[in-house]
């Protein structure tokens, strides 16, 4: 295999996570934080970054240790590794900004049970080389951040009339508070999935023509 081909393949691994195998839009993984902390752009972005951080580090470690971990205890080991990095992330966020920490609340700790991270550890990092695993984790992490950012933007713009706290509609806009409330979270994700479905069907039709 030539260098160029290899590079292409690596790039594919990376891009796959962002769109084709986007964890939220196509695999429906890690939905809890996507719904819960997407009521503003800032919250969404910080959550996305925290999750990516945990995902990349735990994938790295899992991939490094993949030959040493016996199959029987692999899940326990993965969970231990993930929980460690989540605790690390929790302290890091507190040190960087208390404001963000307060807004995200218990959902930082809940990154532990984000099935997406355990899923990547089990399905990819435990079977692939270090470099590839890191690329994959980055791809999936960015895909996740992208999804939660879309949600955050949609909900904040409609529900509060602002984007990252900058007003977009002017003063006469009466915000649809419902979009910030829990119900709006479900609606927003439903609409996004609808759009993704529509896009998929359209491209499929185009391909068969």
């Amino acid at each position: 295999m030539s260098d160029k081909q290899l590079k292409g393949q690596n790039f594919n691994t990376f891009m796959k996570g962002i769109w084709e195998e986007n964890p939220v839009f196509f695999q429906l993984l890690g939905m809890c934080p996507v719904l819960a902390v997407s009521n503003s752009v800032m919250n969404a972005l910080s959550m996305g970054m925290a999750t990516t951080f945990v995902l990349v580090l735990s994938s790295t470690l899992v991939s490094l240790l993949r030959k040493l971990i016996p199959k029987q205890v692999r899940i326990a080991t993965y969970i231990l590794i993930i929980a460690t990095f989540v605790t690390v992330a929790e302290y890091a966020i507190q040190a960087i900004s208390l404001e963000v920490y307060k807004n995200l609340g218990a959902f930082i700790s809940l990154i532990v049970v984000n099935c997406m991270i355990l899923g990547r550890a089990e399905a990819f990092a435990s079977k692939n080389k270090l470099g590839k695993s890191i690329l994959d984790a980055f791809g999936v992490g960015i895909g996740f951040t992208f999804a939660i950012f879309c949600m955050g933007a949609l909900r904040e713009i409609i529900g509060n009339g602002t984007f990252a706290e900058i007003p977009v509609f002017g003063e006469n806009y009466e915000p649809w508070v419902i979009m910030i409330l829990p119900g709006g979270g479900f609606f927003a994700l439903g609409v996004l999935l609808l759009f993704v479905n529509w896009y998929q069907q359209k491209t499929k039709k185009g391909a068969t023509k």
Partner: protein
Amino acid sequence: MNTDSMGYIFISSLLVNNFVLSYFLGICPFLGVSNKLGTATRMGGAVMFVMLVASLSAYGVHSLLVKIDALFLQLISYIVIIASTVQLVEMFIKKMSPALFRALGIFLPLITTNCAILGVALFQTNREYSFLQSIVFSFGAGAGFTLALVIMAGIREELDLASVPNIIKGAALTLMIAGIMSITFMGFAGLGGS
């Protein structure tokens, strides 16, 4: 009503602040296991049980960690407890009722990554609930989860008979329904009394 009273905690965790519909915890099983009424009920039962056990153990572990001043180990110990509880429950059910074990199948191990369970443990610690309050809280939360799951399964069973445009089939539709349910449940807010 007093916000510390048992009744309030129960109603609040069951209806007003329903774990699925207003805290978004346990969305994965909520979307994945809500297509058949039977499985939804069984799943709800299993989650309720694990939740109760996890809440009890979390209470114990938290007191211990406070005593030895090692709160930074909280998250790791909680997740280990939950994982082992699930494993124990799995072995127990396998032995006692193989039929139920087969019916629950893959759902049992999945409970480990159900954020609702870890959520109960974390919330009760944050709010400094007493032992009794923790039990009531976890019971209410489990019942609330089951309630949401069963209602959703009922709706989806009926929907199977309706003709739905292709484009909205699947998760998109389920999420929309969940949105409407969530708004409906907001109506329970008045139950707090004023």
